[in-house]
């Protein structure tokens, strides 16, 4: 199987090299047959890479320890579910999945443009194949998932204990990869527009929906990562400002900025240079993030084991930055935009401000993440940048973003009719003020917390009000019902739904990051402690010997102050043979407002005494729900309409019209 996998990967590389050449020559010479053969290549690469993934899966499931990756990441006693997950549990295997998803995206592009092809299509295909060739080289040389062992062991090591402790591992990495790798498509079309010399606006309408889909995947991926951290790691939090979390957030911030500024270019022909820079920036940051994570440069809980892929990633990053921004500099004259801001207080002005703020947040996070690297390179000293830096510097920026999200949808394009905007702001502002007063009344004295709740309310009420007024207009209309109004203004309404989700998530983050409580207690069996108005009693310890691990489960009963029982918590400790330390599993009572969260820290006297850490976290479920609403809103915006082609035609004709106008103006 080792040989089959190796040959498949080599074959995949050869086919994608052909695809790259055919697309490049086709783009240069304009020969249709070449471009068509490159387009079909995409399906071949997908089939080959899928077969390679299937080979590895089969090797994992059949305990083929002659393959080193299998011996390192699986064992006979590993449950079948986690054996399958081992496919992406370590660096080499996850590159197989990475290649598969990339090939899937290229095939999706090939399907989407099977008939109507923009002139930039051959160039975009070439860029896509270039990226695929890089990742296939990576997996054929520096990383070798199918490397074999001359002397296979009788049993494997098993997956890393932390990764076989929770089924969320099944979905978090694939979603994150779908989000990360998806940026290749907007990047490819952006570069294609530059290569073809088309600084025009067609490429943005081509990729707006792709970017939305990618944004949704990345949102869900980040959310699942936070959920995994919260549900598995047992520290009571969900975001630790760990370098790898940060570098995943950076492309999300940039793509969010792009999804807003793209409207400037579509509607007003503004921000050409800005948009192309954002797309290249998002892809560069994604590449930078993979470099940091996989090249073992930073220490992080996510860092893969030491591999030799570092220099290859670095070379690719250099290529992306040079080619991307070099092309921008070269094509600068075609990227100048004729239109400019007519009024700062307008929708355009708000989009510009929103982009500045999102970029500022990204810059702050990038600085904090790479600062240790810079210091070590310069002075040789090791430093870490922790949560306090990020929290104190990013919070004001995020609050300003909320302020914009709560007011900008009320502003009209071009110039503001201020009295009208102010009139529509009355209800949201009043609601926000009420919430802020109530929060302060309840005893909260931190300004950022009061502001956080107030601004979240502002965003929520503004978005809700705008959706409802859209519905009302529809209801009054002669032919259209409310549903029809929703569908007609789908892009706007979907965007407002994303803002609703943002408001919920912001409220949840504000609450959980500042109003939580925690305590650490050591209890003998039968002893109890009072925490947050509830009595927590350590009842018993239960030992369960499973094939691949030993599980020590404690039972903690929860009683309300009124004396009624409110269930039990069962935080656990898992002992894996290949781990030096036990891995804890927290137990969580999830509630609409409060989560009661218990972690088992240690056991003494054969379980006669146990040390627990208890947390009461408010609003965590608002974050999960809000994030889900954001992703659903994004999906609704990306969903193809019934008259998808005419929709695109409209965009294209608007572009043509504007081009004609510009030509006339000149």
């Amino acid at each position: 199987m080792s040989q089959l996998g190796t040959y498949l990967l080599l074959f995949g590389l050869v086919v994608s090299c052909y695809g790259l050449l055919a697309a490049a020559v086709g783009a240069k010479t304009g020969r249709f047959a070449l471009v068509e053969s490159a387009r079909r290549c995409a399906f071949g690469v997908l089939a080959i890479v899928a077969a390679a993934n299937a080979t590895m899966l089969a090797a994992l499931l059949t305990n083929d320890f002659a393959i080193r990756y299998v011996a390192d990441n699986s064992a006979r006693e590993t449950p079948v579910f986690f054996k399958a997950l081992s496919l992406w549990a370590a660096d080499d295997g996850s590159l197989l999945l990475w290649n598969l998803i990339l090939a899937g995206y290229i095939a999706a592009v090939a399907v989407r443009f099977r008939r109507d092809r923009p002139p930039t299509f051959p160039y975009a295909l070439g860029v896509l194949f270039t990226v695929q060739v890089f990742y296939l080289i990576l997996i054929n040389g520096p990383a070798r998932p199918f490397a074999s062992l001359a002397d296979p062991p009788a049993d494997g090591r098993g997956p890393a204990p932390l990764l076989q402790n929770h089924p969320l591992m099944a979905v978090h990495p694939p979603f994150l990869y779908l989000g990360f790798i998806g940026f290749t498509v907007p990047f490819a079309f952006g570069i294609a527009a530059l290569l073809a010399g088309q600084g025009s606006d067609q490429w943005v309408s081509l990729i707006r929906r792709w970017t939305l889909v990618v944004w949704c995947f990345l949102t869900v991926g980040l959310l699942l990562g936070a959920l995994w951290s919260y549900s598995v790691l047992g520290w009571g939090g969900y975001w630790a400002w760990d370098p790898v979390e940060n570098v995943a957030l950076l492309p999300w911030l940039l793509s969010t900025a792009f999804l807003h500024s793209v409207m400037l270019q579509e509607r007003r022909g503004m921000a050409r240079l800005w948009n192309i820079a954002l797309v290249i920036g998002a892809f560069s940051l994604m590449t930078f993030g993979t470099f940091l994570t996989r090249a073992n440069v930073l220490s992080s809980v996510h860092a893969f084991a030491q591999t030799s892929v570092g220099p290859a990633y670095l070379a690719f990053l250099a290529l992306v930055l040079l080619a991307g921004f070099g092309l921008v500099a070269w094509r600068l004259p075609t990227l100048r935009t004729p239109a400019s801001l007519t009024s700062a207080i307008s929708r355009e002005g708000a989009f510009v401000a929103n982009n500045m703020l999102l970029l500022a947040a990204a810059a702050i996070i990038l600085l904090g993440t790479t600062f240790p690297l810079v210091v070590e390179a310069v002075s040789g000293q090791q430093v870490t940048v922790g949560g306090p830096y990020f929290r104190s510097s990013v919070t004001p920026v995020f609050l300003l973003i909320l302020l914009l999200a709560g007011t900008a949808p009320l502003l009209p394009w071009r110039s503001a009719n201020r009295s009208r905007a102010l009139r529509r702001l009355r209800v949201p502002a009043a609601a926000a003020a009420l919430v802020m007063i109530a929060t302060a009344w309840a005893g909260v004295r931190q300004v950022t917390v009061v502001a956080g709740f107030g601004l979240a309310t502002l965003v929520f009420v503004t978005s809700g009000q705008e959706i409802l007024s859209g519905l009302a207009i529809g209801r009054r209309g002669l032919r259209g019902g409310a549903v029809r109004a929703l569908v007609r203004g789908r892009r706007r309404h979907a965007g407002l739904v994303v803002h609703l989700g943002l408001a919920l998530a912001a409220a949840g983050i504000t609450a959980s990051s500042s109003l939580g409580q925690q305590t650490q207690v050591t209890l003998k069996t039968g002893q109890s402690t009072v925490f947050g108005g509830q009595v927590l009693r350590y009842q018993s310890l239960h030992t369960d010997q499973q094939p691949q691990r030993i599980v020590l489960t404690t039972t903690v009963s929860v009683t309300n102050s009124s004396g009624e029982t409110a269930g039990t918590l069962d935080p656990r400790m898992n002992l894996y043979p290949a781990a030096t330390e036990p891995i804890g599993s927290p137990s969580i009572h999830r509630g609409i407002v409060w989560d009661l969260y218990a972690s088992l820290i240690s056991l003494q006297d054969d379980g006669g005494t146990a040390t627990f850490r208890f947390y009461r976290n408010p609003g965590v479920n608002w974050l999960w729900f809000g994030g889900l609403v954001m992703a659903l809103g994004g999906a609704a915006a990306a969903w193809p309409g019934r008259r998808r082609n005419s929709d695109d035609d409209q965009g294209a004709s608007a572009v043509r019209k504007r081009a004609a106008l510009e030509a006339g103006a000149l």
Partner: protein
Amino acid sequence: MRRRLTRLTRRQTRLLAGVGVAVAVIVALLATGLGRDPSVIASPLVGRTAPNFTLPQLDGPPVTLSRLRGQVVVINFWASWCTECHVEQAALDQAWQQFRDSGVVVIGVNFQDTAGAARSYVSTTDVTYPVVEDSDSSTALAYGLRGVPETFVVNESGRIVDHVIGPVDEAALVSEINSILLARAR
């Protein structure tokens, strides 16, 4: 293409140069991070007396390190589930065969393993040097083990003179042992 290039304005040229310089700086900075190899971090134990242990052999009487004073001892921590250990196994066995009559002992310390798996590993891979079980990991803790394989070389006066993280290289191990034996001969 050439026509366009000749038409580059001064601003474009300057921008292109700026992009080039910026990328070079970023790459140089990141490359310094790549240069680090965590396995070459100097062990605080090198130069100190090796922590003593008495551990039962898989099949044989217990082994006590302090009783081996006067001999060069190569202590190798390994596990049957560790693939890197397979890689270095031949090198260790070679060193043992080559130097066992010159006062050199190789000891395999089995780490976080089951006796059955360890025995089958030893029999299938023909390990000939003595193998002991560190069933409660106390010896691994005393040596500050970070993972397997790790190898410590102890000289005849009981001091740790070398610490290798990851699989040992046969040539390096042989030359290390040779240099200790040579120093003793003088």
